[in-house]
């Protein structure tokens, strides 16, 4: 019964299994995606002895490659995206990127030895998933860090939520407050951002 044909069938099955198992990470899930970013960030951003400029350059790379930067920027302008002119939108996109790079990159400087671990993935919608992760700390409960990932091809991060605090929501609340306190003028935020980025650059050159 299990003659040559049976043997052949088994060979085909083994080959097929081998093929699937050996497939490169093209079909990697969102958890793999986040794990990859976590590892890259830990390795390249926390390196000691590199200049602030170099750390920022690396952060900007990771940020632009893996985050939906234009989408995030647009969201953080809230209701004022509609009233902003084309020119203001374009300038805001640029300022937003600089602002994030300047205010977040240095945070990796004093980071060491913390363990990053992906815990689970939750489906939110047809396109969005929340990848839950933890950063272990010595003698304290781990920090909960959730990533909202949109499964476009390739995956893009649309939000990072730390202990329930969303980067997207926090930035939007702050930016819209600044505009509101400038009489609803988007220019008020743009000039505040320009000032802040200028200050940060100056501080780094000292």
């Amino acid at each position: 019964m299990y003659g040559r044909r049976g043997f052949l069938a088994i060979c085909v099955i083994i080959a097929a299994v081998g093929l699937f198992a050996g497939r490169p990470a093209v079909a990697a899930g969102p958890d793999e995606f986040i794990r990859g970013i976590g590892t890259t960030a830990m390795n390249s951003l926390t390196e000691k002895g590199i200049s602030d400029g170099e750390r920022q350059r690396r952060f900007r790379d990771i940020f632009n490659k893996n985050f939906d930067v234009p989408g995030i920027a647009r969201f953080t302008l809230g209701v004022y995206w509609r009233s902003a002119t084309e020119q203001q939108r374009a300038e805001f996109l640029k300022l937003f990127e600089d602002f994030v790079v300047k205010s977040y990159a240095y945070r990796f400087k004093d980071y060491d030895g913390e363990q990053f671990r992906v815990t689970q993935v939750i489906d939110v919608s047809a396109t969005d998933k929340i990848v839950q992760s933890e950063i272990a700390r010595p003698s304290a409960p781990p920090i909960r860090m959730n990533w909202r990932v949109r499964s476009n091809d390739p995956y893009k991060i649309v939000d990072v939520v730390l202990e329930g605090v969303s980067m997207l929501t926090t930035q939007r609340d702050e930016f819209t407050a600044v505009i509101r306190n400038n009489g609803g003028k988007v220019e008020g935020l743009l000039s505040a951002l320009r000032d802040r980025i200028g200050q940060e650059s100056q501080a780094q050159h000292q």
Partner: protein
Amino acid sequence: MSALVSFPAKVSRTVFGAAIGATLLTAACATRPTDPAEAEAYDEANDPLEPMNRGILEFNLFLDRIFLKPVAYVYKETLPTEAQNSVTHFLDNMHAPVTVANDLLQGEASRAGTIVARFAINTLIGFGGLFDVAQELGLEDHDEDFGQTLAVWGAEEGPYLMLPLFGPSNPRDGIGMAVDIFLDPFTYIFKYEHIQWAGYARLGLRAVDARARHYDEFNELQRSSLDFYATLRSLYRQRRIDEINNGKPTGIEPAPYLSQPAVEPKTASVPSTH
């Protein structure tokens, strides 16, 4: 002195006080803008008392600068880390009865059980709560308060409020704070033992402990924010939602930005104007 205050005088004083309060409130109120985009942003902020709240934050930050911050600095620089951790554990342990009461009021029996076990273990084996032995045994801590209980029961938070000394709050959490004092057995213990000062000492220690633990983060936030007041308001609300949901992600239900064109795929055209 109080004997000298006759009843009508007391009443008129109260009325007078209320009148002044009302005038201040009205003066402090921001008016809702007429422009639709402005009005939407105004509603989203849910902070009609913003001018007054900003003033109170200035006051709180002034107190922080001249008192709390320097004390917290000396505290964290001179006290050994182990001692600081013990203070944190001790204060957390004292909060356990309030957490248990609120867990039960929220119908969370098993979470209440965890805290009862933690309280027993840490009080008896952890030298009155100085050491978190229960954590080592895998019993994780959590905090509950009556503000969270009210939220679980369906109460709205109401407009944002900046309280003098106590910081960010809202009517729901303010009421919660008052109720927690009544739920706390230590309130009665201190009272009947005639050691009310212990209550104030505990409050002060909590402030120093919290400020010292978040020393750098708080300073950094203050430095890097474009609008510290607005950032604080946003952080407070988000943290409260997280605490009310016991840390479960809330993005499961359609988040606001799902329906907005803001983060739609890039193929989407410029958001239409309403």
